[in-house]
């Protein structure tokens, strides 16, 4: 458990596969870890009324969002025996096929990481004030809503 100030979870634009690979690499010195579980949210090229989503533009109430990410983090560490937890979310434009959310949990044992990851992802979707404008190929848009 930590009581540090909220970190900034947001990063501009898409989260790259190199960033994710490098984050995995950094955990190979932590030899008490037996299981990692990673969730990646990827922007879908959904077709809606004949138009295809080409990107999502993310905005957020950043201060509140970082506080919520922090609360979710503290709550997950209290509930589950986790060694590490990392959350990254995009702001700005993320194209279809690119990654906008990266959640990474690690623990000595596997049962813990499954429960923890789902808990964290569901909490992010429900509680964090992030907004997504789905941009169609013809530059019209609609607003994304989590379910």
């Amino acid at each position, binding site marked *: 458990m930590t009581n540090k100030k909220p970190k900034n979870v947001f990063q501009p634009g898409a989260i790259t596969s190199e960033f994710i690979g490098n984050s995995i690499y950094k955990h190979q010195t932590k030899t008490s870890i037996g299981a990692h579980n990673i969730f990646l*949210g990827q922007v879908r090229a959904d077709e809606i009324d004949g138009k295809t989503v080409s990107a*999502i533009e*993310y*905005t*957020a*109430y950043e*201060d*509140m*969002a970082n*506080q919520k990410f922090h609360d979710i983090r503290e709550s997950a560490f209290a509930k589950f025996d986790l060694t590490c937890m990392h959350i990254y*979310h995009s702001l700005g434009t993320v194209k279809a096929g690119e990654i*906008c*959310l990266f959640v990474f949990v690690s623990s000595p044992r596997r049962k813990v990481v499954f429960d923890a990851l789902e808990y964290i*992802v569901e909490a*992010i*979707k*429900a*509680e*964090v*004030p*992030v*907004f*997504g*404008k789905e941009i169609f190929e013809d530059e019209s848009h609609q*607003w*994304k*809503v*989590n379910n």
Partner: protein
Amino acid sequence: MQITIKYFGQLTEITHIEEETLEISGTYIFELLETLYRKYNTLKTKDFQVAQNQELVSKETELTGAEIALLPPFAGG
């Protein structure tokens, strides 16, 4: 009381601004909302939650003077 109000996501398509400071005469969140509904006609048709000082609050919560934010449905991840 002077209150700073922030608008997010699709609500900014109605307000055309992201932030403003208004003089509010009421005591409760719902009174602030009545003021905003008068100012922005179509705001009432939109689905949103209200945060005061970065915490979600009900319409019956008292205004403290802290920052208010109008938050449309979340779409993180």
